[in-house]
């Protein structure tokens, strides 16, 4: 599936949810089911700067596609991380870099993207994009 298709899927899932309580419960469930990051990456090197809750992110290149794993010590943050991983993982660097971000707004999580430092989602998405850029240049250097 293309990123845009997964985004559409996510938007439809959220459309079926009621007010914030249901959304949060949904995220909490996602968080609980997120395949945790390898313990080896759960350290300061993989920690994302600027989050009040700690978020760890790793990315590997697998056959030309970027494979993300993530984790957090806060469950709602972890749920959001799970959502981002689901949308972006296992796609080409180019597709990731060109992806439209408006779905975040549409599913009512925009507040989590405000440029505050207590909230690390912006940093997490930026970090995902940095990885994609890094792997893109690596691929092109070949």
């Amino acid at each position: 599936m293309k990123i845009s298709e997964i985004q559409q899927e996510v938007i439809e899932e959220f459309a079926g949810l009621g007010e914030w309580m249901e959304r949060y419960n949904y995220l909490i469930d996602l968080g609980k089911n997120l395949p945790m990051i390898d313990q080896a990456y759960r350290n300061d090197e993989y920690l994302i700067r600027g989050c009040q809750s700690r978020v760890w992110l790793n990315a590997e290149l697998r056959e030309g596609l970027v494979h993300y794993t993530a984790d957090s010590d806060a469950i709602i943050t972890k749920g959001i991380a799970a959502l981002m991983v689901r949308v972006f993982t296992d796609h080409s660097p180019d597709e990731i870099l060109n992806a439209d971000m408006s779905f975040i707004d549409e599913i009512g999580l925009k507040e989590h993207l405000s440029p505050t430092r207590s909230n690390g989602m912006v940093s997490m998405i930026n970090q995902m994009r940095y990885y994609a850029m890094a792997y893109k240049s690596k691929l092109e250097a070949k």
Partner: protein
Amino acid sequence: MNDFPIDLIRKDFPILDQLIYGQPLAYLDNGATTQKPVRMIDAVNKIHREQNSSVHRSVNYMSEKMTEAYEQARQTVQKFIGAPESSQVIFTSGTTGSINLVAFSMGEAVLEPGDEVILSTMEHHSNIVPWQMACERYGASLKIIPITDEGDLDMDAYRNLFNKNTRMVSVTHVSNVLGTINPVKEIVRIAHSHGVPVLLDGAQAIQHEPVDVVDLDCDFYAFSGHKIYGPTGIGVLYGKQEWLDRMPPYQGGGDMIDRVTFEKTTYNISPFKFEAGTTNFIGAIGLAESINYLTGIGMDKIAGYENYLRDYATQKLSSISQLRMYGTSVNKAAIFSFVLNGIHPYDTGMIIDKYGVAVRTGTHCAMPLMQRFGIEGTLRASLCFYNTTDEVDRLYDALNKVIEMLA
């Protein structure tokens, strides 16, 4: 506490009457910043509309009036903290600005290689980093007063930290995380017995109880306007005259000088020596209005009501078995830091926000204190005199909802 006119008082703070996500706001984040009474709001508005003009600098009518109002504001602060002279009241940009001024200028005046500065484990970063920077510049080092599990300073350890190299003590009056009200008079007494001056960080104290700098006998007292119901960008530093005279200026600029040539500049006297450039004079006048509002109610009455709130909230919160409180001193302000077992404070904060309960989560700019307790952060509810027992109940209910959702 039926004699505290809480309903009338809430009317003085227009911001309190609003809905957040459809729920009435319960603003319990007063440790971060406080809300503003109409009296101060209107004063600032009136200056902007009718009176604004530069202070100290021009000969015109408006400027004279503005200068008068600014110097009157200084006297209001002077009276409020019991400072002997208005020249001992310096307007700064905030507590952080005040402490940086002292750390820099006292650093220049007294710190030498090998010297020591005493802080405590419960200090806010604003009372740590300036001293670290000063110590680094002069080859001095920090000594730290440890605290007990309840969150009290270990006074015996404090006494033992002094030696012939001790040059300064800088501790908080009230902890912004634990709520502990420190025995500052005793702290000053001990330091003075070693001939060492003391700065008290009053950021969390000045708005909660009557403060008299002469009675405390401290050498410096620092606080922020925005935490005492005043404007942002304004703060106060009180200092003993002898130190203000000895300290070199911190910032250079207009008004702080006596005479400038490129070869040599001589400085003005205190407070002007420490107020370089155009100060936040409108902020200072706004702050004075907030203080006038508070003294109109009476700081003792405010303290009394806040103690009542503190007792109510202590009892209510301690009935939640999954709640772990940090800061259980018997001398405590209405500041509550806690964690719900197994639940990240950030999750808790995000959820209770949806119930209209505004708090703060994280390290509260006190990472060394977090390390002391081996935690990443807490949720902090900080109450003040416009809060109600009803709002405490709403916090209690919201926390129970969180436990339902996440435990």
